[in-house]
């Protein structure tokens, strides 16, 4: 494979507008999906209660609803998961301590497995969402600053565009598939933020290195040549790395159990989007911006600093 990868004569920069168009189209579609379907917010973000009931036998929603009725409780919804052996009951209100105790006793007696119960008050839900948002914003600023110092501003911005591209993709797919968004989802998005940036940086690092060897980088075509060369050189690494991480994320998705599945799915989507954006979007975006910057500089006496 490596020899074939090395001999690729694909012009990554020439076709940039097609890639931009593909991403733009997908982003619009994703935006529509989010607008229409919304997100399936878990109680971490919407407040209320959630009861996970497990049994050794297959459960039915009627059976579970009836038990709750017996306790004088009215779940908002009861859904089955894990091949029908797990039932998830959602409540709009926070269950109080005594209700939690009653539910635990009832279902432990019934199925001999203690249910898991979470309750979140609206205040806490708002705090969680707020903190997550602040975290992403601060992380972005930190990353731009670091890239600006180690590389250059334009690459920092290109990396952040790629990052939001990837994060948006995860959110869109979660909206389409209506997978529950909970606190581990936030962790997954932030991991992808780290990965995406990691991936982009590896390519930019090669561009930075190749720019040093170039005698003259005066026009957009020069920039395009360097970008193409760098992308081909790092292609084997990009593919191999994403393959290995996809192995891990897929194993988690298939074998990891209910609790970790949303996390693993988010990771998988983010990894694929991240690889796409670092090969087809980030460097091309930088090439376009750099080309414009060079054009401006032509009329000024200052030489290109690269």
């Amino acid at each position: 494979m490596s020899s074939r990868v090395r001999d690729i004569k694909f012009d990554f920069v020439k076709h940039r507008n097609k890639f931009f168009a593909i991403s733009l189209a997908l982003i619009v579609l994703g935006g529509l999906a989010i607008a229409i379907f919304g997100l399936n917010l878990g109680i971490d973000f919407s407040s209320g209660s959630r009861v996970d009931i497990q049994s050794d036998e297959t459960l039915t929603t009627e059976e579970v609803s009836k038990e709750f009725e017996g306790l004088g409780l009215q779940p908002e919804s009861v859904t089955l998961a894990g091949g029908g052996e797990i039932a998830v009951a959602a409540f709009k209100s926070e269950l109080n301590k005594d209700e939690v105790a009653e539910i635990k006793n009832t279902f432990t007696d019934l199925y001999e497995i203690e249910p898991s119960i979470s309750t979140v008050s609206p205040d806490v839900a708002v705090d969680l969402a707020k903190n997550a948002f602040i975290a992403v914003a601060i992380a972005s600023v930190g990353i731009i600053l670091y890239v600006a110092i180690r590389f250059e501003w334009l690459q920092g911005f290109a990396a952040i565009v790629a990052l939001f591209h990837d994060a948006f993709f995860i959110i869109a797919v979660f909206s389409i598939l209506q997978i529950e968004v909970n606190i581990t989802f936030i962790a997954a998005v932030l991991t992808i933020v780290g990965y995406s940036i990691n991936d982009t940086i590896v390519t930019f690092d090669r561009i930075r290195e190749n720019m040093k060897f170039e005698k003259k980088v005066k026009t957009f075509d020069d920039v395009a040549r360097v970008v193409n060369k760098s992308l081909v050189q790092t292609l084997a690494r990009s593919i191999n790395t994403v393959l290995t991480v996809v192995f891990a994320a897929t194993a988690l998705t298939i074998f990891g159990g209910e609790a970790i599945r949303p996390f693993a799915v988010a990771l998988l989507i983010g990894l694929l989007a991240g690889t796409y954006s670092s090969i087809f979007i980030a460097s091309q975006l930088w090439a376009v911006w750099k080309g414009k910057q060079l054009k401006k500089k032509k009329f000024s006496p200052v030489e290109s600093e690269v």
Partner: protein
Amino acid sequence: MVKKGRIVAFFLIVLLLGGLIGTTVMGVTKEIKLGLDLQGGFEVLYEVTPAQEDQELSQDLLNSTVSALYKRINVLGVSEPRITIEGEDRIRVQLAGVKDQNQARELLSTQAELTFRTTDDEEQMSGADLKEGAAKVVFDNNQPVVQVTLKNPEKFANITREISQLPQPDNRLVIWLDYEEGDSYQEEVTKPADEQKFISDPAVRTVLSQNTVVISGPPFQLEEAENLKELLNAGSLPVQLEEIYSTSVGAQFGEQSLNKTVLAGFIGIGLIFLFMLFYYRLPGAIAVITLSVYIYLILVVFNWMNAVLTLPGIAALILGVGMAVDANIITYERIKEEIRSGKSIMSAFKAGGRRSFTTIFDANITTLIAAGVLFAYGTSSVKGFAVMLITSITVSFLTAVWGSRILLGLWVKSRALSKKPGLFGVKESEIDEL
């Protein structure tokens, strides 16, 4: 000339590492503290309000609440309770591996302020009048009761004198646990016995001048009497606690999650190992060694930090493997490139190592920035994830960069690999002529 000494050194190091890991890994994994999502347990976030209205919620008050909570948890025999103050008015309690979650929850949030009142709800005596830590369970006609000791028997004598002179049915001393403004004895006494909010209401017919008082309850079960005793001895909370977030995981749920995630982890890591061996040959084998060391070190470091392993934490660990693999791949791809450009194995190894270092460094730092922000702004499970991610990145940097380099260096410097680019996964035909 092949220098056999270096190859021998390589195998000695590998054997040593293998021996160290093989003999200690079971002990290390046993010591790891599992979070409540992996062994069952619960977590509650309380909003704290002062018990008295005129009281300010100060840091001191929060601290004394936390220490009172610790005392109560000791009663439950939970080995690793975690109680943290969050923000200005919140306390988070995490108890992993609690047997009776309902009992624990009740025990935690009860304010445990004992008061003695008249039938008009007028306070006569409070927990402050009791000797600290002197409550005990005694038996009265085979019935468990709680006995408390008074600081000042004279005060009690005065109170009982007054009450005993009141006409029936007002000659009663009502004992309340956590009397709330608005509670009324007259209302409660009309309710059935098991719904009454006060503990007991003994009639007082004579002046009592002894220094102990027996609370006989409505009658108590032995366990209830024990709990009340422990609560009284642990001291009352200076605040009221209201649950605003709680999550509880059944023990079986936790165990299942742990087993499944560990299985998934093994499968994922196994696939990665196979891929590395198949694609990168000798360096791939070295990557497998350093990755195994990485996983072992992570667990050791995690124990040192006394951190708790949670579900997202395991995910972070597996992702850390991905990062470590990436560092290996970047290095090996770079070495392969140098070999293809016609360099000798020795100089390709040196150049590849040097050039890949900055790449790996920059890529790791950017991820560290993201993980650091997560740590600073995340709570509970996200924080656990961030801790694991930061540890993973740091350790993977050490093993994948230095570890791999030292081990591969032994082979390269032995000259056993000279003219054998196939061991790096490079075909002779791919090498450019100089």
